[in-house]
């Protein structure tokens, strides 16, 4: 940054291609004119392309092997119980704890519970108690006054598309009010503001975006116009030399099928289940590997899990066996897995031991799930799924240190 004020605007889940598309169609005119004043790049999301990993890499500049967050879920040591790591599990500090100055942070996902900060911090999804999601707590009554919500209720999206849209607009409006309030309340050096409704609308209504004849298509686009108005407002309030960074954490694409990786592991003899137990507690003796959401495969290692099976010497061969097995997986003649990474190939750092042993990257449209299910593939109740093609936009920012094809871990260099 140039020593002036810096603003980082996040649009969760907005793919690079969508930025170009909506600017071209004049749905987002403010963003379109900003493109002429700055630089737009494709940015590679985290692996896997999941918000909790990606945002934590953005705010710390660290690889998952260093910051220790590998997804929205993880397994509690010594059990098969899933936990949902939060900011207490983050092993690297976000920039607002390391860079001097006053910082305003609004709605950055996976930063709950908030900690003391010079400035203010409202965490984003997942934030289960408002009083642990806001620092300082004195601003909570004001947030309640403006009807601020951390997130739309995902439950509503499953009930009704129009109800979801109404909620998305309401939530966005309240978030914009919070931005206005905090913009003026603090004399800040950096302000980070993330819109997450974009991710929700894309998950639920990607088919509406793709289908220009859909009755809700215009309403879908109006949501992005509303985002664009906020962007315009921010830009108008910036001084000439203030820096502006806009970015997403991952992209989005149409889902073809949900793929239940554990079903493949059962079919191929890697995973055995018993009748008793809830969730992954069904994992039985004899299991060599199991999968969590988003393509993460774990070896059922002795010393790490209760009904462990695999001794240390067997791991390298087993990882290759798992990788080879998934590479042959086909649905409707199409290969499901594009790439299978061993953890040491993509992660590095002190937290590497907690990483999934094999990380699978899907081909287009195959949504990798960790469900324990009888069927290998299922129709998805959602039409959008993540992909790695995020975007990065910079204006008045020294971006000479980053490559033309940056990753989420590079963003911190712009903030520094």
């Amino acid at each position, binding site marked *: 940054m140039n020593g002036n004020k810096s603003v980082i605007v996040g649009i969760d889940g907005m793919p690079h291609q969508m930025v170009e598309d909506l600017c071209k169609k004049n749905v987002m005119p403010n963003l379109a004119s900003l493109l002429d004043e700055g630089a737009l790049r494709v940015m590679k999301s985290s692996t896997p392309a999941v918000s909790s990993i990606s945002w934590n890499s953005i705010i710390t500049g660290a690889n998952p092997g260093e910051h220790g967050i590998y997804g929205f879920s993880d397994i509690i040591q010594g059990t098969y119980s899933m936990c949902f790591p939060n900011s207490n599990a983050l092993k690297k500090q976000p920039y607002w704890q390391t860079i001097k100055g006053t910082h305003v942070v609004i709605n950055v996902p996976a930063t709950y519970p908030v900690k003391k900060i010079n400035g203010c911090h409202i965490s984003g999804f997942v934030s*289960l108690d408002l009083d642990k999601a806001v620092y300082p707590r004195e601003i909570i009554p004001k947030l309640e006054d403006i009807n601020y919500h951390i997130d739309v*209720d*995902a439950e509503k999206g499953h009930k009704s598309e129009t109800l979801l849209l109404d909620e998305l607009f309401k939530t966005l409006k309240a978030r914009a009010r919070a931005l206005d309030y905090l913009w003026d309340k603090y004399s800040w050096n950096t302000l980070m503001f993330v819109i997450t409704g974009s991710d929700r609308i894309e998950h639920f209504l990607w088919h509406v975006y793709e289908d220009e004849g859909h009755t809700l298509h215009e309403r879908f686009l109006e949501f992005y116009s509303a985002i664009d108005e906020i962007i315009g407002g921010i830009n108008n309030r910036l001084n000439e030399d203030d820096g502006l960074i806009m970015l997403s954490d991952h992209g989005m694409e149409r889902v073809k099928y949900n793929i239940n990786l554990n079903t493949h592991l059962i079919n191929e003899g890697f995973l055995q289940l018993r009748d008793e*137990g809830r969730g992954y507690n069904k994992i039985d003796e004899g299991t060599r590997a199991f999968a969590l959401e988003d393509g993460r495969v774990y070896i059922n290692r002795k010393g790490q899990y209760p009904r462990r099976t695999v001794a240390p010497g067997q791991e390298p061969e087993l990882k290759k066996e798992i990788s080879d097995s998934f590479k042959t997986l086909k649905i409707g003649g199409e290969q499901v897995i594009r790439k299978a990474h061993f953890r040491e190939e993509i992660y590095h750092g002190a937290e590497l031991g907690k990483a999934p042993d094999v990380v699978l990257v899907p081909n287009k449209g195959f949504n990798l799930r960790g469900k324990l299910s009888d069927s290998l593939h299922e129709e998805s109740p959602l039409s959008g799924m993540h992909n790695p093609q995020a975007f990065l936009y910079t204006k008045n920012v020294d971006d000479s240190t980053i490559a033309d094809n940056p990753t989420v871990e590079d963003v911190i260099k712009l903030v520094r």
Partner: protein
Amino acid sequence: MHNAEKTCWNCPAAKLKGNIDFRACGQSMKKTLDEDKEIVIECKRRPDLGHFEPSITFEQCPEWRKTKYGYLLRDMKVMILGIDGYLGWPLALKLAKLGCKVSGIDDYTRRDCVMEKGAHTIIPIPKMTERLHVAKEVLDVEINFRRMDIRDFKALREFIEEVKPEAIIQYAEIPSAPYSMVDLDHAVEVQNNNVLGTLGLLWIMKDVVPESCIIKLGTMGEYGAPLTGRPLFEGLFPSDAVLSWDDREWSMGGELTPRDPVSFYHCSKVQDTFNVYEACKYWWLRSYDIMQGVIYGVHTEEIAQDERLRTRFDIDEWFGTVINRFVSQAILGIPLTIYGEGEQIRGFIALEEAMECMVRLIASPPEPGQYDVVNQVSGIYKIRDLAETVSDVASKEFGLDVKIQRLENPRVEAEVHPLEVVAKKLPQRGFKPTVGPDKEIARMLKLLNNKVMRKRIEEKKYSIMPKTTWSGEKKDSDVLEVYEPGTKQKTGYEPRFHTK
């Protein structure tokens, strides 16, 4: 261990935080408990775990430790409402000895009701202050007691907020069919205390400790004794039960079984059943409704440690249960009183066994929203057969000369009927009956057949004979027959009992 595979889903330390839908990166604060989405909890005891799914097993969790009754939550906070009573006090001592943090309330209703009827407990019991002192002195346990009427909802709420119990035992009810049939005032007081007390408790639990389990004492008498011989399932029909009518069939699985209460007291228990059932449905509370058989006995390991720790023992027509009454009559040489034909069949359980069952249930909480029912009986017997058993033990082991008398039945009830009881859930939780009538009757006679106790029985012997009739008349029951034990042929129905 019977509860090794139970998980946080059952654990009162798990605080439900909402649902997360990972498919849509969405969260919902609505506590729908929809298992298709990830249910997120926090552990009140292990905040370091952050948010997680409720699937750590008791076996895996360091907060649950092994005891002979199954895994038990370390320092589990258990509140006993009615802690001064026949059951409340021995349970408090047993739990405290197991390491639970026991609290409780009582307003001495039982002491007052017995006194009001001119009776007294045959086994002397000290005042609560002394009981607590002796518990500390002899067993080295602390019990947090408050004198309180369960219907003082403000005080009850404050106490529950202060303690935050992880299980609540609802014993604070007036446990007597004849007492509820004395007159209008007694019927109203029984139903008011029992029904409204429990209803208030449910509302307070909803607000303050929704994760806690309510274990409420019901009675096998809620079911009545169906003349068709239809089995008495554990509160709810099993999954394969079918109603057949007009050439059509319906599954009855999971529905409440019929109730046929046999006094206004039993009606209060049935109303409780519906109130608890609905509260579980509306508010995701969890409960065990304990359909306890007729209780008897004087012994648990803890109360046997010191005579000042003993529990009360009533023999009067209102609060004396049948075996306890028979034993007292045997000691005084009064013919044992059976009502009518004496072919009534009932479920029974010894005090020591009932206390063990309660610990096993406390250790094995139901799931959120689950209304579960257990038939807490260790055997089913005919009343006249039990009179024979008491006579047998009293004469052979204690040299007492015992006769049996049949009285005109003061109650409205079937005197000859089949009875088939299903009681599988407690055996599934590791309970094996080890006491039985013979052993406990011998213990009772050993404790009571001495000069001091005989005198105390003698003082109140007039209170044994029934004067309260279901018709509302106040009169002594006529003696229909007096006979020597062992002289009657077996007649009527054979009890049927399923535990596996």
